[in-house]
């Protein structure tokens, strides 16, 4: 959400796939947000706070930059 949302790509869908097809609901529970928020993040409609971004990375056991990639100038 916000003006910069289109410039941040994410690999949440692919990371979920490589984490044994983890469901959106399971990820949401691990991160502490609703499933709708995970859906919105995956579709690039919402850019999470830094804290949630770090929690997503921790849920997959990868560094933050592997989950979110800034595409701006």
């Amino acid at each position, binding site marked *: *959400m916000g003006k910069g949302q289109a410039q941040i790509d994410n690999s949440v869908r692919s990371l979920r796939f490589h984490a044994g097809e983890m469901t959106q609901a399971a990820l949401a529970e691990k991160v*502490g*947000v*609703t499933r*709708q928020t995970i859906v*919105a993040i995956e579709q690039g*409609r*919402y850019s*999470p*706070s830094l804290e949630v971004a770090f929690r997503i990375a921790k849920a997959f056991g990868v560094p933050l930059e592997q989950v979110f990639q800034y595409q701006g100038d």
Partner: protein
Amino acid sequence: MTFKQWNAAIMIVGQILVTIWLARGGWQLPGVDQSIAGTAVKLLWVVGFMIAWNIVLAITIAILVGIVTRRELVDEPDDERDRVINLKASRNAYFAVSIGGLIALLLFALKIDPIVGVYVVFGALMLGGLADSASRLVYYRIG
């Protein structure tokens, strides 16, 4: 649709119904006290209707969605995205109410019938509610 989106949709329909009722002259019912106090009592009944509408429809929709989808429609605790959406919707509602309040003040300044002024204030509150519900529905869909 989630519980929160259904809730916003229910509120929009209720607000539209009340607006149509008022626009069709519901505020000119025969035998109703046309004083400011009488008008306020009538509008308080409208507020009561809105509350009952929201409760009854929320329960009905939860049951119907549960039957159709075979999944319980429950409200989840708010997370950061819900809070951001609520804040943005409140901002839009505040803007709508402010405009309505300003129009009401201007009408009072032009010595309009105070009873009409009460309806304008009520309309501003309805508009604020509508802006809030519609904004939440839109933000949940697009952002």
